[in-house]
Each structure stands twice: as structure tokens, then as C-alpha cells.
């Protein structure tokens, strides 16, 4: 999975540069997040602007990151969801679990 990482203070932004997040590639995101948690970086913003398709594995990877961040007193927030990706969060009711922002600035400012 193509991921772009930027750091601003103690917040790490991960931009997913893939059209699809599915069982083939979402494990990569999970591993990258675990590596960040091991380095003590527990405040993450995941930018999903490029993602046009997400399945239950992609959602599961994000839930894994959210749980691990929370367990370390950090937080994982999402931004820039395309309408069809947003609808998946609503279908699975995960929009009630995550903080979702329209753009990365709002997500960063919320920490």
C-alpha cells in the first residue's frame, strides 16, 4: 500500500494513496500504524481522500489503529472521506466510533 507520512508536532498524518483499501492491502496500513505506536507516536490522522473503495478489512484496520491509539492514550481521527467511503462507515455504524473531519486542517486542529 502506498502511504505518505508527515509529522506536525506530536501528530502523524498518514495519507492513503490507493483507490482501494481491501483485504489485499489494508494489512500494510495496520503494520505501519503499529510501528508508529511502538515509536510512541499515538496521535494519528488518516487521510482517505484518494480512497474510492473500502471493504470490511479496510474498516477493520482503521478500527485496530483506533483501539491501539486509544489504549496508549492517543487518538486516531479520519479526514477527507469520499461519499461512497463515508456510506460504508454509516452502513457499519462506525461513523459513531471515529471522529471524521472534512479536511486535514480541521483534523489536526482538533487535537
Amino acid at each position, binding site marked *: 500500500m502506498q502511504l505518505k507520512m508527515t509529522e506536525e508536532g506530536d501528530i502523524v498524518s498518514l495519507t492513503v494513496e490507493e483507490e*482501494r483499501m*481491501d*483485504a*489485499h492491502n489494508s494489512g500494510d496500513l495496520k503494520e505501519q500504524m503499529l510501528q508508529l505506536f511502538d515509536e510512541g507516536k499515538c496521535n494519528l490522522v488518516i487521510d482517505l481522500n484518494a480512497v474510492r*473503495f473500502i*471493504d*470490511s*478489512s479496510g*474498516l*477493520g*484496520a482503521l*478500527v*485496530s489503529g*483506533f*483501539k491501539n491509539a486509544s489504549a496508549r492514550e492517543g487518538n486516531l481521527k479520519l479526514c477527507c472521506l469520499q461519499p*461512497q467511503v463515508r*456510506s*460504508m462507515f454509516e*452502513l*457499519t*455504524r*462506525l461513523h*459513531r*466510533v471515529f471522529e471524521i473531519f472534512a479536511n486535514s486542517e480541521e483534523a489536526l486542529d482538533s487535537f
Partner: protein
Amino acid sequence: MSRRVKVDITVPNQTKYLGVIGRIGESMAYSLKGYQGNRRELAYHLNLVLTEALANAICHANNCDPDKDVRVLISASDQDLTIKVFDQGQGFDIDALAQHKAHKSAEGGRGVQIIFKLMDRVRYLHEGDRNVLEMTKYFQ
């Protein structure tokens, strides 16, 4: 009465084929001439159902065994669309999975539930030497 369109494809038991098969479902949504509903939504849902069913067959039923394969059969008319995904595993109790409610913070367990939400009839059967997950959507 419109003629049925049938697609029959077999892929190696590898997740890199999820996107290929998902996009076939998407394309079929746009080829259903008489479909009156939200075509873009149908395309996404067919992509999703195919991806979930195929990932389930590859990773769970076939246990990620690279020597196995997965067959996908899609049959569509203006009235309905049926997807069959054949696996070579031990089988599973689909009704138990469907009734299991994933906790809101659970990492897994949503795939089969998504299929049940989006399709009108879902069955897991034994055909020949394979299991088949059969999912049907009615358009009228």
C-alpha cells in the same frame, strides 16, 4: 424478457485478484439496461459484495492456500443478479456468522453481515466437491 448475461471466471487463491473481480461487478451494474435504481450505488455494492465473498473464500475457506483457486459465477438480467463464489474449504455456518453482531469496536466480523445487508437472498450450499456462497439481488 431480457437475456441473461453470465460471467464465469476462476482466479488463483490470492487477494491481489479482489480488485479485478470487484470491478467486473461494478461494470455489470452499468450494463443492466433496465435497472431503474441508483446505478452508482449498485455498482459500489456489487464491487463490495464480490470483494467480501472472495476475500472470505480466499482467506478463510481456502485458508490462504496458494495451490487452491476460487471460481466466481455472475448471472444477471434486468430482474435479478446472482453471484456464486465457490471455495474448496471445509465449509462454515453462515447463519451463525450472520446472527453474530460485531461489537462496534471489533476489528473483524463485518464481511458476511455486509453481504446479508446488501443482498436479498444469501445461501451457503454444497455443489459437487465445492462449497458455494450464493447471493441474489432482486431488482423488481
